[in-house]
């Protein structure tokens, strides 16, 4: 047993080393700075919980927490549903499926600045294709739903919706992971469902989703985590944190600004700590909800520990 156990540990070692060296250690270093006044240039003094006291009063942080949480609430479910839907649509060999898969992945590969620019065009309030489309069915400058077209870049609500919309096009990662998980599901399970005359919805609910449950659970958690630190570059290009004062200021943007523009590293670390706490809380809540559901399924048929 020893030889195998040693090898297993070796197999895990690079990752653990990376994790410790590149994430855990740096993260700890930063987090300790949350209790200091650090400006990266000269001083660094311990100030206890002052940073936290300040961020409790900081309107930017308030707004960012609200924005990040609302982004999480909308984007996580929407992204997941869309990614799963697309993965299930495209997992089979049909004409055009390959192209479509590549198409879904591609937005994630477009450089962020260009991607932001593209959305700036798309969401252009006057001439943007998105609004042009919305105006198609309507008349008198109203959309097909009879509402005024959204002001993606100037109205706070619409701007946040715009950011969520943007996020829906970068689901490549979730999509690919669901797709590969779906490909690994046993065809026999589907034959059984087919024989029983299960409708598409029932197959989804009773076979596919439960079998994918562990993967989906992980993806939900990951997306939650990611959405609380959503890459701010496209958002920055498109809305620059506004419309004012803080309509699309997310936590990640606050951290970056405080740390590297205002050189308030200690304070940024406190915001990062806050983000971390929020994320861990969100993840724990979700995990409680997901755990029972995700226990079986793909993992259910899993192997037992062998060399343990």
């Amino acid at each position, binding site marked *: 047993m020893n030889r195998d156990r040693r090898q297993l540990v070796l197999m895990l070692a690079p990752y653990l080393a990376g994790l410790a060296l590149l994430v855990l250690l740096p993260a700890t270093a930063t987090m300790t700075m949350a209790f200091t006044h650090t400006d990266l240039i000269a001083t660094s003094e311990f100030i206890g919980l002052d940073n936290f006291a300040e961020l409790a009063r900081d309107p930017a942080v308030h707004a960012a927490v609200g924005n990040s949480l609302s982004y999480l609430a909308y984007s996580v479910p929407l992204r997941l549903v869309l990614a799963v839907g697309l993965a299930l649509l495209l997992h089979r060999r049909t004409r055009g499926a390959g192209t479509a898969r590549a198409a879904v992945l591609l937005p994630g590969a477009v450089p962020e600045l260009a991607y932001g620019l593209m959305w700036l065009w798309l969401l252009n309030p006057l001439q943007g294709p998105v609004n042009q489309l919305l105006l198609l069915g309507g008349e008198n400058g109203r959309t097909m739903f009879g509402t005024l077209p959204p002001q993606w870049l100037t109205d706070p609500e619409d701007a946040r919706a715009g950011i969520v919309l943007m996020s829906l096009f970068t689901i490549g990662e979730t999509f690919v992971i669901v797709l590969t998980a779906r490909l690994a599901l046993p065809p026999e399970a589907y034959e059984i469902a087919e024989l029983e005359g299960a409708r598409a919805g029932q197959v989804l609910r009773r076979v596919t989703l439960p079998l994918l449950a562990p993967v989906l659970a992980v993806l939900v958690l990951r997306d939650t985590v990611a959405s609380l630190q959503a890459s701010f570059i496209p958002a920055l290009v498109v809305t620059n944190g506004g419309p004012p004062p803080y309509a699309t200021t997310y936590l990640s943007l606050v951290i970056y600004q405080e740390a590297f523009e205002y050189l308030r590293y200690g304070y940024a670390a406190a915001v990062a700590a806050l983000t971390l706490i929020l994320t861990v809380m969100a993840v724990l809540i979700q995990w409680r909800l997901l755990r029972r559901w995700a226990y079986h399924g793909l993992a259910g048929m899993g192997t037992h520990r*062998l060399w343990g």
Partner: protein
Amino acid sequence: MTPPGRAPAPHRRRRAYGAAAVTVIFLSPLLLLLTGSLREPGQPPVIAPPLIPDSVGTAAYDQAIHEGDLVRAAANSMIVAAVGVPLSLLVASLAGFALTQLPRRVTATVIALSMLAMTVPATALLLPRFVLFRTLHLTDTLVPLIAPALIATSPLYPVIYYLAFRAIPADSYDLCRLADLTPMQTWRRMALPQVRPVTAGLAALTFVLTWSNVLDPMVYLYDRAVFTLPLALRALAAMDPHNQPVFLAAAVLTTLPALLVIGVAQHRFLHAYGPEGAP
């Protein structure tokens, strides 16, 4: 060769239409970038480029390659990807495999740590990592850009591998144990080949992440000679608005290798064992 699918014809047709619609929805916005890049640089900026370009020219591409020093940047990016992506997949799959075999407590801990690692905002890591690489005298080399391969580029990927390896029937593991395979051999001969779709998918994702990594090079790279594509692109993005086509051309050029990798990888998704891709 396409084996007879089980779905009856109308089903398949509907799926084909769906695929076409998805392609259109996801690709047409990107067309804007393409047509934007085909405009003549130096003209007044437009509100948005037309979907169908009025005049087509590649002047922007020439200028981009020249001013952005894209060839050298691409070479640097290639080096990073060529070393980083395989290394990252190796780390991820080895770790994912080990997790299926180690005691449950270890697994749970490592997965929790991975989740925690994903939780840490990237900006919070920037400075300590800089200090770390600086201490190791590795700034201004490509090493810090390859280093994230050690955490599998994203701590999500070992977990995904873990789930994939877990889904392999226990029998297959038993077989390998009977044949006295070491965990390493089991990983290489039995487990890894069975999760090829996962490897292909994660290869594409890892490549995209590595290829478009901009925060790390921004901090670690000083010398223009080691700039990677995202940095070169960032420089071009700072150009005046009338030179936007140049930036877009560079963006398109930057995207092309990723497109290639995605295309190849997605081809591999299909290549699973079994009628529907399942083992």
